[in-house]
């Protein structure tokens, strides 16, 4: 299974890679929404994990673009963020996000959520 992680924090990207690789996933990385879109144009992925607050293109805009493309209507997109407000959750859901995980993430729970949304 191939996972695309989108986050502007090197620390979070490193933690995600470690967790996902150890769980047997292949990992692709992007540092903002625009880079994430570029990856999706050329690579097949099974699930996306994205932050919200990023430079260039934030996570909400990224999800909107992915859904608008028409090619990834059913691609699971998990939002991984420190944001906890209902307003942001609603924005994420309306944009087309599949699920919401609050940082800091528990590795086991993250894997469990990925398996749940993919199957």
């Amino acid at each position, binding site marked *: 299974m191939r996972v695309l992680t989108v986050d502007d924090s*090197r*620390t979070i990207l490193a933690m995600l890679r470690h967790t996902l690789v150890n769980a047997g996933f292949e990992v692709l990385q992007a540092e903002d929404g625009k880079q994430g879109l570029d990856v999706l144009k050329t690579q097949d992925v099974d699930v996306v994990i994205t932050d919200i607050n990023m430079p260039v293109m934030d996570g909400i805009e990224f999800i909107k673009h992915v859904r608008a493309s028409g090619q990834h209507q059913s691609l699971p997109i998990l939002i991984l963020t420190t944001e906890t407000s209902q307003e942001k959750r609603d924005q994420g859901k309306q944009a087309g996000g599949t699920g919401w995980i609050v940082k800091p993430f528990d590795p086991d729970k993250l894997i469990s959520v990925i398996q749940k949304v993919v199957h």
Partner: protein
Amino acid sequence: MSDLDDFKATYFDECSELLNDLEEQFSAIEDGERGADRLNAVFRAIHSIKGGAGAFGFSGLVGFAHAFETLLDYVRDGRVDLTDEVVALCIRANDIVADFVAAAREGTPLDPDHGAEEKARFDALCRGEDDDMSGLIGVPGDDEEASPWKSSTSTSCR
């Protein structure tokens, strides 16, 4: 060095870069460059520092950064005016974030009231209180509890 130590080293390197960037951003803001891009950049930098701090359970840093980030969110939304007083407060707050980061890196505790005066002012500004409350100290504890990344709960993260 364990994986967790590696992640912490990455985090502190990232913090150094973000703090340097914040210093430059606030210097420009102090000089009158107060556009949306600059405000968004400082918000994201504090947000990133907070996000990593939460992963390692640096609760003092998380609490202060959360209050600072909330003020910055109010400023960029126009709910709090970016007056010279608020700019000066943010510059002080930036130094305090650096103190918290240094304390976390060195493992040396800070005074329990460190940053309390500024945090109280953030909260007052976000509540719409314009009176200068900078004399306040001893605010209650953080309202956002940091829960560290539980490497011990997964064999993959030890």
